[in-house]
Every structure is written in structure tokens, then in C-alpha cells.
């Protein structure tokens, strides 16, 4: 009972500290909020509010009698209404003019379609390059244009493969057959309507595509929450040293309260404070940024794992210190390094399967990050469970070491 009184007292003190409040709630929400504002309102829309990029096309394609001017179809596709929010397309006669416009800043990107673009379709061996040039000072806009262009060219590659395959199977095609094939393909292909395509191009089945920005902001929020939860754990555990220096811990030991009860109360306070922080951040992120945290059962496991590891790691870190003056350096170093390593996938966009993907698992933050991201991406309970068990094992080890050091210290 007395340990609960001690824990509640510490909780009250934590939430009366402006410094603690800023670090517990302010910074994680502000950083996530910055990204949220940078990329628009992901909660209500599925589109991105980015200014349209000025694109200049130099279509040098001379066409062929069999295929017609295929370069013109690229021009038309990019000038379509559905892309008008992303790019403003204009055309010029030469490559030099197009490059000049990018150099002068009057266009953000230039696309140069070579003269033998159409011709390459009748010759299976021939390859041509469509050039894309962009203003290096612009980042997001030209990247989107490039992405759209790549998708269109992928379709043309499909046509080229179809023609090559048909020629191979028929043992050669005359001009009429090629013309008919291309026209038949082009007629049915309206970028997305492939009902009459001669080649049925299928993409592998995958889970429904989620809002990428929501996923990104969600992972940022998760990373920030984990990162700062560990600081809260360490900072709250640091109250043991602070009370030791203020003399209140000694005073507690002079009351008819056992040492075990006092330490239990202090440890309970660490867990409670982290728990409140995590719950508040999750609810706030859901309400403010529309972040989907995943299935509740999985999420509960993640929260328990986070609270346990952050608290026990904080207790262990504090047990290594002699005074609170050391804690700035130790926490700054230890928690920043382990935090960065633990969330290397979030910070660098590195996939978990890459060689670097295993690095986070050398830190407790990494285990939590894996579990939380896995939950957010909709993985099953069975997939989360190993990470949860890993977190529990780590917490037990940290807690035993920390408690052993503290009991030795106050014995």
C-alpha cells in the first residue's frame, strides 16, 4: 500500500514538471506534427498537396508507318487531366530548348523522347533511352513526375515485349500485322484499362495498399514515442538518485516503511509514468494525425512490452550512476545511441529484411519498434508474440540487475 502512495507521489511530481511534460508529450507530438503538416492532412484525404511541377517535353520521335508516332502518346498521357494536379506540361521542338528551360528554372523537369522511339518497337533488338532531366534544387515534385513517367514506360515495354513475342511465335511478321497489333494494343490500353490487351500483365497479389503518408507519419510517431518513453523511464528512475541527494530518500528510510517497499514504490512510479505517457501519446496521435495503431490485442502487448523495457532499462541505467550530475551524459549517450540503433529502420527507411535490419535487435528499443511497426502493418498476434517475449526477457534481465545494484547501494 505504501509503495502505491510513493508511486502516486512520484507520478504527481513528474506531471508537475514542465520540463518532463515537454519531453514526454511535447517533442514527440511536435516532431510528428511537423511531418504531418509537411505532407498535408492524411486523416481526411488520400492525396498529397504538393505544387504542380512544370514539365517540358521535347518529343523528337519521328514515328514509323507500322506504329505511328508512339512518342505522341506519351506526351498525351502526361498532359492528361488526371495528372494536371501533379504536373503542368508544355512542349518544345528541341532537346536544347528543353534543357535550357530546366537550367533557367522555368521548368522543373524535362523529358526528351528520342527520334527512333517508335522505330524501336518494330525491331526487338533495338533499345532506346527516354531522358529525364530535373532541377536538382527540387526534390519531391520531379521525383513524382519521374515515377509517373516510369509507370508509362513500363506499359510501352509491355507492348514491345508483346510484339517481340508475337514475332518470335509467328516466325516473322509483316508491316501490316505489326501495325494491327500495335493499334489493337494501344486501343485497349488506356493506362489502366487493359481488358483487350493481348498480353495480360498481372502484378503479384498483395494486401490493400495503405495510405503511404499515414504509414510514414505513423512510423515516425511510433519511433518518437519509443525514443522518448525510454527517456521518461530513465528520467523517472533518476528520481531515486534525486531523492537520495535531496535527503528525502533517507527520510523515507527513517519511517516505518521497509526498504523493499520504498524501492518497489519508486520502480512502480517509473512504470506508471511511462504507461501514462504512452497511452496519452497514442490517443493524441490517433486524434490529431489519424494514426492507425493496429489491432487492440497486439497493441496491448506492445504497450506492456514498451512500459516494461523502458522502465527496467531506466532503472538499470540509473543504478549505474553515482549522482544525478552523471545522468545527463549517460542518458544522453546511452539512450540516444541505443535509440538510434533501435530505430534505424524507421530513421533510414531501411527494410527490415536488409543486412542492417538485424541491428535494432541488439537494443531494447529495436524489439519494441519491431513489435509496434508489425502491429501497425496489421500482422497477426503470432507474429508479434516472439517480439513480446523478447521484450519480457530483456525487462526481467534489466530489472534484476538494476534492483540488485540499488539494493546493494542502499543496504
Amino acid at each position, binding site marked *: 500500500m*505504501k509503495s502505491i*502512495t510513493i508511486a502516486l507521489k512520484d507520478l504527481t511530481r513528474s506531471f*508537475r*514538471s514542465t520540463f518532463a511534460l*515537454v519531453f514526454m508529450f511535447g517533442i514527440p507530438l511536435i516532431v510528428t506534427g511537423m511531418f504531418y503538416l509537411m505532407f498535408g492532412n492524411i486523416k481526411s484525404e488520400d492525396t498529397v498537396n504538393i505544387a504542380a511541377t512544370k514539365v517540358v517535353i521535347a518529343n523528337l520521335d519521328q514515328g514509323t508507318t507500322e506504329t505511328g508516332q508512339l512518342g505522341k502518346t506519351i506526351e498525351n498521357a502526361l498532359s492528361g487531366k488526371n495528372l494536371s494536379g501533379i504536373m503542368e506540361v508544355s512542349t518544345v521542338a528541341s532537346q536544347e530548348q528543353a534543357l535550357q528551360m530546366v537550367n533557367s528554372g522555368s521548368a522543373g523537369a524535362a523529358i526528351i523522347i528520342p527520334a527512333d522511339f517508335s522505330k524501336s518497337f518494330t525491331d526487338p533488338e533495338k533499345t532506346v533511352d527516354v531522358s529525364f532531366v530535373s532541377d536538382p534544387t527540387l526534390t519531391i515534385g520531379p521525383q513524382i513526375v519521374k515515377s509517373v513517367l516510369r509507370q508509362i514506360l513500363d506499359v510501352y515495354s509491355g507492348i514491345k515485349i508483346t510484339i517481340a513475342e508475337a514475332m518470335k511465335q509467328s516466325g516473322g511478321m509483316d508491316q501490316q500485322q505489326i501495325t494491327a497489333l500495335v493499334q489493337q494494343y494501344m486501343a485497349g490500353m488506356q493506362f489502366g484499362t487493359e481488358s483487350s490487351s493481348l498480353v495480360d500483365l498481372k502484378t503479384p497479389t498483395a494486401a490493400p495498399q495503405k495510405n503511404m503518408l499515414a504509414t510514414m507519419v505513423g512510423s515516425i510517431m511510433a519511433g518518437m514515442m519509443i525514443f522518448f518513453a525510454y527517456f521518461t523511464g530513465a528520467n523517472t528512475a533518476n528520481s531515486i538518485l534525486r531523492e537520495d541527494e535531496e535527503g528525502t530518500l533517507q*527520510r523515507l528510510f527513517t519511517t516505518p516503511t521497509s526498504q523493499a517497499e520504498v524501492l518497489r514504490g519508486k520502480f512502480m512510479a517509473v512504470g506508471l509514468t511511462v504507461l501514462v505517457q504512452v497511452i496519452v501519446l497514442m490517443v493524441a496521435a490517433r486524434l490529431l494525425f489519424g494514426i492507425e495503431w493496429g489491432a487492440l490485442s497486439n497493441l496491448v502487448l506492445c504497450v506492456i512490452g514498451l512500459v516494461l523495457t523502458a522502465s527496467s532499462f531506466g532503472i538499470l541505467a540509473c543504478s549505474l550512476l553515482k549522482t544525478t550530475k552523471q545522468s545527463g551524459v549517460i542518458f544522453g549517450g546511452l539512450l540516444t545511441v541505443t535509440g538510434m540503433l533501435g530505430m534505424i529502420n524507421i*530513421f533510414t*527507411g531501411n527494410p527490415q529484411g536488409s543486412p542492417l535490419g538485424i541491428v535494432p535487435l541488439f537494443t531494447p528499443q529495436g524489439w519494441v519498434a519491431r513489435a509496434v511497426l508489425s502491429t501497425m502493418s496489421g500482422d497477426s498476434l503470432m507474429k508479434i508474440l516472439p517480439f513480446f517475449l523478447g521484450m519480457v526477457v530483456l525487462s526481467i534481465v534489466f530489472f534484476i540487475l538494476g534492483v540488485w545494484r540499488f539494493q546493494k547501494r542502499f543496504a
Partner: protein
Amino acid sequence: MNNKKLRVSFSVLIRVGFLSIITIILFHLGSFTIVEKYIVRKYRLDLTNSALLAKREAGTLVANQKFSQKWENKKMTLAMNVQNLRKTFRNGSSVKAVDGVSFEVKTGEIFSLLGPNGAGKTTTISMLSGLLRPDNGGSEKSEILIMGQSLLSDPLAAKAMIGVVPQDIALYEDLTALENLTFWGKMYGLKGDQLKKRVGEVLDLIGLSDRAKDRVGKYSGGMKRRVNIGVALLHEPKVIYMDEPTVGIDPQSRRSILDGVLALRNQGMTVLYTTHYMEEAEELSDRIAIMDHGKIIANGTHDELIQLVGQKTKIVLTINTAAGQIVEDWKRCEGVSNLLVDESSLVLLVDDSNIVLPRLFELAAKKDVRITSVDIQEPNLETVFLHLTGRALRDA
């Protein structure tokens, strides 16, 4: 959106991430200077005897009166029985902080541990509070009995009998006085209506009822000191420890504290008081134990301790030249038992000042040393300490 765009976003994230981390570190480093602010040295205490008496008249201390009467009947019983306390600190070399300390404290008395800094008073009181465990070993076993309860074998029961007022203020500055007292009351095992009642009574007692909901951090030093004492009184302890409560405070506040201690004794409380100020021990104490180098070198009432000096008189002389010229001659002079060179004077313990003083003048004249002032003092605790250790209490 493709991977390229995400990478661009992540590169921005990395920058922001690092920026926020640097901010964390800077804030974190900055936060620890706050601890320094808790060390407050200037205190005031308005827990005056008259204030306490007024409260008694108002009937708010009826419970204490009953308690006082109850213990009056057992005046001669022991509140504390301390046997053979030893403590050695090993930090590279071994330092015997407390070496075989034994004493008894009767109920309802003020018992003072008097000694210079480093004499072992705080280590002793730390053992008596249960903060340090006495060393085992030696021929005699250590024992601390408080109202008959052994602190060593049943610490929680014994701790329930004591209230400790630490030397420095030990309160939560970000909590209000009411919250502090409520919290500490719970730690002493009070709950429900009893807790509420005692917190109210103590707030009245320390005169802070009207500011009970202000945070302690906003209080003046004197107000904090009052709360600090109030915490120790919450559970109406049988014995109260006060560890050098007047160190580093102004004379007015010291006066208030001394009056407060006397008032507590008048209520029937047993007080264990540590100090290195001779005057405080003389004024407050029913009995005094003088400590030096971890041992009790004398123990008794004020008069009993003075008798240790016998008929000796303390003489303080100042001379017009360096002391070195005359010190050895005066030390050898018949009737001089101790001589101590102070900063600007010489302190002598002599058998009979009427006989010894002319001899001292004679020896000075021979060395062409002029005595510029003479102060003959009645024996006091300072004299006793000088007699027993050959050193002055304040310089030891």
C-alpha cells in the same frame, strides 16, 4: 508514391531526428543543475515556545497533554538504551567514525550529543535512525532499544516510535505543505480520518494552515524548516531526533528552534539533540554526552560534567607578540594543566587563577612579553572539552 519519395522524406526525418536528439541532450544536461537549488542554507523557524503554549491553551494539543501526563508517570523509564555502537567506513583506508558508543536516554528528557564536526554525531544518529547498520564484532554486541523495541531486530516497530528531523530540509518542493504532510503521514502509517486530523493539527502547530495549499518550493527558509519539523511530529512519536538543526541559520531562527525544542520536551516528548554549539547543549539539555573521535568521552548532567574539571579555571590571555616566545614557559608553569594557542589568544586551564596568574605575568615579564588582556572564565562545557582533550571544542 514510390520508394524514392519516401527516401526523400526519411532524409528530412533524419535531420529532424538528430536535431531533436541534440535538443534532448542539451535539455537533459541543463536539467540537472536544478538539483543544486534544493540546497538551502538560510532557514528561519517560527515554531516558538509561546506559539506552542498558545495552541495548548486553545485546546488543540489535548492529545499531547494526555500523552505528556501518561509519560510523566514513567519519568524514570528509559526512552533509549544504546549499547556498543561501532561503525568503520572503509574507503581506501579505514576510518572509525563511531567506536563503542553507549548511552541511555530517559523518557521526557532532552539528551544532547555534543562534539566538534567529525566527532561521529551524525553517524551515531544515522545508526539510531536505522539508516546505517552498526558493525558487528568486538566482545560486546550492539543494541539500540527505543521504548523497549529493538531497532536492530525489529526496525519497523522501533522506527514507528521515532521522528527524525534531518539537518537539511528533506521535503518535496514541488508538492504543497498539505501534500507533503499527507504523504509523510501515510509513510508513518496514518490513514483516513486520523491522518486528516493529524495533518490539520500539525499545520496549525507550525502556523501554516492558511498556506497549506502552496507549494513548499515557494516558501521562505523558515517556513520550510517548520514543515520539516512538522513532518517528524505527525505520528506523535515518543522520541524525536534533531540532528544539528541550527547549523547555518541566523540567530533569530536559532532562537526559535531552541524554544521549539524546549516546548516539545514540555509536552513530554523525549528529544535526542546533536550539536557542536556548547551554548545550545548547555541551555537545552537535561543530560549531555560529549563525543570526540567517535567515542563518548564524558556523559552526565551539565553540573556533573563541570565537576570533571574540578576547581580549575579557564583563563584567556592576549599578548603583544607571537605566542611562540612564551608558550613553553607557561606550559611548564606550576598550576597550568592545559594551554591552547588560539588565533589571537592563549587559552589556559589553571588550578587556581589567583595563584597562577601572577606567575604567568612574571614569566611574561622575563621574556619581555606584554599581556594586553586577561579574561577569567567560570568552567563551562568548553572548559570540560579542553580539559578532556586538550583542544578547543570549536577548533577540534
